[in-house]
């Protein structure tokens, strides 16, 4: 009797320990980034140009931050939109052969190394234009986003009870209206989460940007056909540099990026209420 209770206690303790071990990296990462990044962050840090490697002021990440916001907006507009409609198509015509192959392709795309997607964008949008450009970056990010959004939207729609789909169709409206005007709001939390994951990826991905946007840190947005900066790329470049000052900027930039992603997560979670079925 006592042996059984002791065994139970030990097992619960073990499981608790494992849970802590697997969640620990999350908190370790957040802590280390904010501890190292906090010193340099100020309102000016968000708008200033980066500092020279030696001497001068602290500087900031203004152009890269604006670049990231533009890239996020563009890629979620293209990739999120396409992903949303693809996901709805997959749920509405799930039995169609085309739907089967679309889903298979998306599942393969999710596993694609993003650096390859960057190379692809380089081949189709950078080489022909003979210039690194913002649109190529957004294009590459959109391709990264599409499969995530599409598959998650499909999941969100699949979780709607069949009886509600029947109710929607019995109102005598087209599949388009059923899916976009009725079922979309039933599945809103899942869809919002899908778009959020897409947006967070757009904010954080580095590899698709390597060959596409050049990552200028010296000027603000100049047009979609011109190079543009991005926070992840700035972190990558500055962290690899030999300059102490740039390392600090990289830490600060990492803290800003993390804040964007956490804020997106929290805001979406709290604003979009779940539909109780």
């Amino acid at each position: 009797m006592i042996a059984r209770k002791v065994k139970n206690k030990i097992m619960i303790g073990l499981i608790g320990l494992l849970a802590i071990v697997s969640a620990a990296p999350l908190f370790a990462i957040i802590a280390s980034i904010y501890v190292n990044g906090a010193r340099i962050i100020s309102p000016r840090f968000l708008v200033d140009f980066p500092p020279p490697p030696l001497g001068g002021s602290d500087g900031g990440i203004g152009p890269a931050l604006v670049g990231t916001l533009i890239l996020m907006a563009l890629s979620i507009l293209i990739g999120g939109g396409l992903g949303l409609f693809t996901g709805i198509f997959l749920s509405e015509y799930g039995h169609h052969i085309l739907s089967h192959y679309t889903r298979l392709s998306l599942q393969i795309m999710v596993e694609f190394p993003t650096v390859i997607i960057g190379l692809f964008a380089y081949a189709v949008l950078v080489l022909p234009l003979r210039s690194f450009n913002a649109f190529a970056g957004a294009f590459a990010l959109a391709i990264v986003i599409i499969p995530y959004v599409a598959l998650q939207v499909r999941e969100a729609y699949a979780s709607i009870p069949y009886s509600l789909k029947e109710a929607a169709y019995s109102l005598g409206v087209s599949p388009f209206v059923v899916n976009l005007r009725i079922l979309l709001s039933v599945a809103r939390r899942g869809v919002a989460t899908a778009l959020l994951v897409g947006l967070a990826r757009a904010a954080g991905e580095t590899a698709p940007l390597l060959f596409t946007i050049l990552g200028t840190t010296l000027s603000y947005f100049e047009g979609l056909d011109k190079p543009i900066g991005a926070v992840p790329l700035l972190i990558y470049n500055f962290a690899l540099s030999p300059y102490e000052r740039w390392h600090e900027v990289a830490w600060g930039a990492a803290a800003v990026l993390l804040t964007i992603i956490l804020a997106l997560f929290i805001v979406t979670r709290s604003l979009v209420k779940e539909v109780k079925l």
Partner: protein
Amino acid sequence: MRWAVDVRNLNVWYGLKHVLKNVSLRIPRNMVFAIMGPSGCGKSTLLRAMNRLLELNPLAKVEGEVWINGVNIYSDEVDPMDARRLAGMVFQVPNPFPHLSIYENVALGPKLNGIVRSKKELDELVEWALRKAYLWDEVKDELKKPAARLSGGQQQRLCIARTLALKPKIILMDEPTANLDPVAASKIEELMLELKEDYTVVIVTHNPQQAARVSDYVAFLYMGEVIEVGETSNVFTTPKHELTEKYVVGKMG
């Protein structure tokens, strides 16, 4: 145009399974018509063939004709959406849209179909439908409340109001009381008798007593075939077929 519903040689398959076999039925206007039979006999399928909701099932294949109000809803000119407006449907599990308020649940159909021209007209239509469904007095002060907070019976009457708001010609009910308590169920039954003044009501039930209570005409369906059709009083007192007799006296599922 004599018949509200005229089903002619209807055959339905789910994949290779032949679920409705040569069904022909005529349903007169302003009556409650019950389709009864043991589970799995094809009742719900037959009902869903009457407004083409069956087509949501990609495996379903339909052959034959269903005339609603003089229109063959399976002819090439008819869109499934039109068929669904002609024949509104109430389901086995009350299924109001859980994210919408009581008001919006009724207003959604007319809004999406462009039936109303102004907010005032919509308000009037919603009130009319809720009154017609015997729900108005219970909810008139809380129209903004989420529909999910209503009781099961109220939710089902809300679904009836949602259907009425589209001004259908006939109302299809798929075991509308199967998930309700007896009091709520008897309210729905009363409502059916009221509704037949203006509509034709087709109800599917697995309960012969309910068919006897509410219907004027009844069809007995068994393994996808119509075994017997007739006036309810005749079918229950002098069934012509042995299977019908077994069913109505409760000797069969």
